[in-house]
C-alpha cells in the first residue's frame, strides 16, 4: 500500500489492439479520430443472414514466431496472444524477464472453437447405420485432433500468453460473456489498489468468424440478422448484436511501479463498478444509476463523455439510453460513442475495447467523432478528462468503468 497521503493510482501503460480496423493502437487512432464517422469493415456474405466484422490478415509470426506454437492455437487464441504481445511491447515490458516473471494475468475468455467439418460430417452420417452411439465414439476418437481440447479450454489463452510471452506471475481467467471483461479488469484494479499486485496484463479476444460461435449466439436470441446498421439504428426493428473479431490487451500498473521504471501512462482507471440485476424492466437503468454513484465522477463537468458498449440488443440498449437520459436530466450532457457500431460486439473483450479506446482518447486529449449518424451521438463542446465506459451484458450483468487523465 502507498505510504502517507499519496494514493496508488491504476495506470494503463500499454495497449495492444487488433480488430477489423487493423493492427495496433496507432492505426486505430488514425482511423477513428477524424472529422467524419469512421467506416466499419463488414462481411455480410460469408455467414449470411449474419453480418460480422472480420479480422484482417495478420502476420501472426511477428508475435508468435514458432509454427509449432501457432499450430497449438486456434484463431481466438492467436488474436489474444498477438494483442498481448503488442501491449507488452507498448509498455516496454516485452523481453524483460524480471518484469514478465511478476506480471499477473487477468483474462476474459469464452470457450475455444469446435472442429466444424468433423461435427458436420458426424451429424450427416451418424444415424445412417442405426448405431449412432458407438459410431460417434469412433468418429470422435479418430477425428478429433488431440490438441483441439487445448484450444477449447477457456484458460488456454492465458496459457499460451505465458508460453509465448513468458508472463508468469499468476494467471486467472474469468468467464461470463460481456461480464468476463468487467470481472477481469475489476480484479486487477482491486488488487493494485489494495497492494495485492502491481503489474497486470488484462485482456481478451474473440473470433467472431465461426459458425459454432454464431450458433450459440443465435440460440440465446441475441444475433442481428441482415445488413450492417449502427447499434442505435437497429432499435425498433430487427434488433440484436453484430459480432466482431478482436484482440485487446492492457498493461495495468500501480503508479508507483510505473514511475519507478519510467513508464508513461495513457490514462488511469479511477474505478470499475459492476452488478447483476434481475433484469425486470427498468432494472438495468436503475442498477447503472446506482453503480455510477460508486465512481468518482467529476460532477462539475458539463458534459459526460461516454464510451458506450451498447450491443444493439433492444431492451438492454434502450435501458442504457434511459440511464444516460437520467444523467442528462441531472444537468450533465452525455456525449456518447458506441464502439460496437464500428468494431462489432466483441463479447468477453468488449468492455476492454472500450477502456482501451477511452485511454487512447485521453492520452491524445481528444475525443472521437460520432460513430454513426443516428442522432444519438452528437459532437462535443468541451474537452474530456474523464470518460465513462459502459457495458451491459446482452442477457446478464452491468458494468461501468471510469477512465481519466493522469494529469
Amino acid at each position, binding site marked *: 500500500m502507498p505510504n502517507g497521503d499519496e494514493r496508488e493510482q491504476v495506470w494503463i501503460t500499454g495497449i495492444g489492439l487488433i480488430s477489423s480496423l487493423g493492427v495496433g493502437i496507432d492505426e486505430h487512432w488514425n482511423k477513428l479520430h477524424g472529422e467524419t464517422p469512421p467506416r466499419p469493415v463488414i462481411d455480410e456474405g460469408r455467414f449470411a443472414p449474419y453480418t460480422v466484422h472480420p479480422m484482417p490478415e495478420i502476420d501472426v509470426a511477428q508475435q508468435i514466431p514458432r509454427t509449432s506454437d501457432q499450430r497449438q492455437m486456434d484463431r481466438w487464441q492467436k488474436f489474444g496472444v498477438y494483442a498481448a504481445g503488442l501491449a507488452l511491447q507498448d509498455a516496454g515490458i516485452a523481453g524483460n524477464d524480471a518484469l514478465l516473471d511478476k506480471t499477473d494475468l487477468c483474462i476474459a475468455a469464452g470457450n475455444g472453437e469446435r472442429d466444424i467439418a468433423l461435427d458436420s460430417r458426424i451429424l450427416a452420417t451418424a444415424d445412417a447405420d442405426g448405431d449412432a452411439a458407438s459410431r460417434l465414439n469412433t468418429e470422435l476418437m479418430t477425428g478429433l485432433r488431440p490438441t483441439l481440447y487445448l484450444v477449447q479450454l477457456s*484458460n488456454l489463452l492465458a496459457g499460451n500468453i505465458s*508460453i509465448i510471452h513468458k508472463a508468469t506471475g499468476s494467471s486467472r481467467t474469468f468467464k461470463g460473456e460481456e461480464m468476463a471483461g468487467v470481472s477481469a479488469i475489476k480484479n486487477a484494479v482491486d488488487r493494485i489498489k489494495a497492494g495485492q499486485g502491481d503489474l497486470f496484463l488484462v485482456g481478451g479476444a474473440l473470433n467472431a468468424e465461426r459458425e459454432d460461435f454464431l450458433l450459440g449466439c443465435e440460440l440465446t436470441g441475441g444475433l442481428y440478422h441482415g445488413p450492417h446498421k449502427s447499434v442505435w439504428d437497429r432499435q425498433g426493428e430487427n434488433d440484436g448484436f453484430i459480432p466482431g473479431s478482436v484482440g485487446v490487451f492492457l498493461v495495468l500498473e500501480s503508479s508507483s511501479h510505473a514511475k519507478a521504471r519510467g513508464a508513461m501512462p495513457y490514462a488511469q482507471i479511477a474505478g470499475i463498478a459492476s452488478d447483476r440485476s434481475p433484469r425486470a424492466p427498468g432494472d438495468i437503468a436503475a442498477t447503472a444509476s446506482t453503480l455510477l454513484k460508486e465512481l468518482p465522477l467529476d460532477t462539475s463537468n458539463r458534459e459526460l463523455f461516454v464510451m458506450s458498449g451498447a450491443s444493439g440488443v433492444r431492451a438492454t440498449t434502450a435501458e442504457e439510453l434511459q440511464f444516460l437520459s437520467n444523467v442528462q436530466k441531472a444537468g450533465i450532457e452525455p456525449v456518447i460513442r458506441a464502439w460496437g457500431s464500428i468494431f462489432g460486439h466483441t463479447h468477453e473483450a468488449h468492455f476492454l475495447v472500450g477502456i482501451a479506446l477511452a485511454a487512447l482518447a485521453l492520452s491524445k486529449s481528444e475525443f472521437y467523432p460520432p460513430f454513426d449518424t443516428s442522432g444519438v451521438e452528437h459532437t462535443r463542446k468541451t474537452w474530456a478528462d474523464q470518460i465513462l465506459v459502459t457495458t451491459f451484458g446482452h442477457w446478464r450483468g452491468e458494468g461501468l468503468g471510469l477512465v481519466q487523465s493522469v494529469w
Partner: protein
Amino acid sequence: MSNDTLDHKGRPLVAVTGRGVVTSLGIGKSDNWTKLTAGQSGIKPIRRFDTRGLKTTIAGTVDHFDIEPYSAFDLSTAMAEAAAAEAIEEACIGSRSSFPGPLIIATPPSELEWPHLRQLYNALPDSDISGYARLLASARSGKHADLARHVRFAAIADRLKDRFSTRGEPLSICTACASGATTIQLGLEAIRRGDTEAALCVGTDATVHPEGLIRFSLLSALSTVNDAPQKASKPFAKRRDGFVIAEGAGAVVLESLSAAKARGAPILGIVRGCGEKADSFHRTRSNPDGAAMIGAIRKTLDDAGVTPEQIDYVNAHGTSTPENDRMEYLSLKAVLGEHLANTPVSSNKSMIGHTLIAAGSVEAVFSLLTIETSILPPTINYDEPDPDLPLDVVPNTSRSKSVSTVLSNSFGFGGQNVCVVFSSEPA
C-alpha cells in the same frame, strides 16, 4: 480489529465457516467422509452412455441426482447447489433471501453436447442443407431457446446467485484443474481487501460425456485399467497410468475471522494463505525443473506465514498420471526438504478420481475435515510404491494424526498452479 483476528502481515484472518461436498461417493460431508476414510472408491464403469470403441470406459460419475436426460450444465448446477446449500447451512449465515457476500464459482466449459446438436439437426428432417447452416437454421426458428443455458458461460453462476441471493456480480472462473483453489484465493483476497466480510466459493464439474472423456483420452491422460475400475486411480504408485475422470462439487463459506467470531459462527479452519505461479513451458506439462510448482508452493507458504516444517500434512493434487505425480513429488521435496519424509501426503483422487474444475474445492473440504477429525484419508491402490517418489502417502488405510496445518495443491493444464494452506483456528 484485534490482533488475534489479523495475520502475520496485519491482514484480516479468513475463516472457513461452512463446507459442502458432492462426489461419486455421495452427497454431503458425512457420507463422503465415512467412505473416503474407509478407503472406498467411487470409480465404476460408465453407464451414462455407450462406451464401445473407447479406450477408457470408467469414471467417477455422480449418479445421485435425478438429472434425466443428463447434461453437464444440469448436473453441474445440481451438484453446485447441493454443495453450496450444505456449506451455507453449516455456516448458518445470512437468510434465505440474502447471502452476505459474493459468489465465486468455477464451472466447466459451456458448450452444446451431442444430443443438443442432434436435436437441432434433426429438427429440420426434410432439409437439404447440412452442417452448421442447418443447425443455425434450426436455431433461427426460436424453438430451441431451452438450449441457451448450455452455451452461456455465466448461466450456472446466475442460477446460484438467484438461489442463494449472493451479492453483486457473481464471478465465473476457469483456471483448469486449479479452478476450485482459485475461487478460494479470490475469496480470501476480497476479504483481506475489506471488499466483503463473507464469500461463497464453489467449484463444480460434470464433464463425463463422450466428448469430454475422449478429449482427455486423446491427450493420453486417462487410465485404461477398465477391468478393475476401483484399482485404476493409483497416485504415486509405480504402475500409475493416468487419471480417472470424475464429477463432483465442493463449496466453502469464507468469512473474516472477526465477523465470524462476532456472530458466534463455527470456526472450521483458517485459510492461512494462497499462492500461484504460472508455468511457461508447455500446455500440458510442467517445466522439468519444477520452477512454477515450486514457486506456487513457496509463495503460498510465504503468504500463509508458515515454515515448511510447520506443514503437518499435504492434500496432494496427486492425479495418478506419471508426469503430475513425479513433478509434485519433486516440487514438494524442493520446498519441504528433509521434512517431507515426515509429512504424510494423501491423494483423494485415488478414491474419487479427478473432478477437474471442482478438484480444488472438493479437496479443500476434505483438507478441512482432516483438521477437524484428525483422520488422514488414505491413498488407496498404493500396492507398489514408485521408488523414485519416496513419500508417506498414507497407503491404503486411513491414519489418525492430529493436524493443524494442511497444504492443498492444485495444478492444471495451461501452467496453472495454485496452492492453499489451511490451518486450525489459532489458539
